[in-house]
């Protein structure tokens, strides 16, 4: 089963963290696809040394663009299940099994990780408020009753991955994916996962100002169509 599981990691200037992440994931799921999103540090070299597959964006196009690149590559490789996993060490490889379980069991085509059903370790209050607002936004705008709206830990069956076409290059892709899941009508399930925050991951995370920009770009994309 594991041979058919591809773990896609989008990485941008993650030289110091991505090596450990790739090693931990590769130990259980060897088909790790790292998409270096035009990093200016040594991320691509680390990924090439550690990951089974390394793709490189010539220029930075954003996390959404990098994930779509990895998903398309994995589909082309014949992946049966595609997991998206953060490069900054926030996610635990132990949770991958729980994420793919509903897909393997045929209960769902898509699994969405939820830190609020699971655990959010060292999550600052300000970030918690922002994430809760994102959940509220998702319930109102995306009309999806999720407990966690912007968790990068997701799993797709091959069929579901074929329905996903991320066009929002940057962080607005999280809402776009939720829209596409709703429109596809495919069964999805939220799975409890643990997300561990560190100084590093918090520094790499989305600021409130950028979150406002993300909302703007997402709404504009909906207007433009």
């Amino acid at each position, binding site marked *: 089963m594991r041979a058919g599981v591809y773990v896609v990691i989008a990485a941008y200037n993650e030289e110091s963290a991505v090596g450990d992440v790739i090693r931990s994931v590769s130990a259980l799921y*060897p088909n790790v696809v790292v*998409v270096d999103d035009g990093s200016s540090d040594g991320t691509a070299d680390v990924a*090439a*040394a*550690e*990951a*089974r*597959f*390394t*793709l*490189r*964006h*010539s*220029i930075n*196009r*954003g996390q959404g*663009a990098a994930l*779509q*690149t990895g998903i*398309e*590559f994995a589909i*082309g490789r014949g992946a049966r299940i595609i997991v998206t996993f953060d490069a900054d060490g926030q996610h635990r490889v132990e949770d991958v099994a729980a994420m793919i379980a509903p897909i393997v069991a045929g209960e769902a085509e898509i699994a969405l990780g939820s830190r609020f059903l699971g655990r959010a370790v060292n999550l600052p209050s300000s970030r918690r408020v922002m994430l809760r607002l994102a959940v509220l936004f998702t319930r109102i705008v995306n009309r999806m009753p999720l407990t966690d709206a912007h968790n990068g830990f997701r799993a797709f069956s091959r069929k579901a991955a074929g329905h996903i076409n991320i*066009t929002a*290059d940057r962080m607005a892709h999280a809402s776009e994916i939720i829209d596409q899941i709703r429109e596809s009508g495919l069964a999805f399930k939220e799975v409890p996962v643990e997300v561990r925050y560190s100084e590093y991951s918090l520094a790499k995370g989305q600021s409130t100002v950028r979150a406002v920009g993300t909302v703007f770009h997402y709404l*504009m*994309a909906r207007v*433009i169509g």
Partner: protein
Amino acid sequence: MNELLLTIAQQGARKATNAPPTMQIILVAVFGAAFLFLAVTTLRGRIRTITGLFWSLLALAALVASIWPELTTWFARQVLGVQAGINAVVYLTAIGMVIGFFMLYVRLQRLRNELTVLVRRLAIAEAQEGGAGSDDGAP
């Protein structure tokens, strides 16, 4: 119409006592040249007809307003319900800029998306050429 004639007469009276209208001459020259250039370019088919027509009409309107600035006051009062012509120009410019920014944003997003598709195809093609296309491509 009576108000238009009155406005033109008032403007004329002011002109008689003012210094030479240097700014007006510059504006007429600039917008006149712009209109001629745009009209010729459009007629020669160097830009899309609809685009050329839009910019030519805009330049013509600016030219007419430069020659008879009192027309903007008449237009503002009679058509837009605004007291001063310059206010109407500012309002219309602001509206035009918002529309322009939106259209530029849409075009920029489309270009970004096309760029991403190109970058993606290149990345996948390079990975496949580099050995990732086979199962032996492991590090």
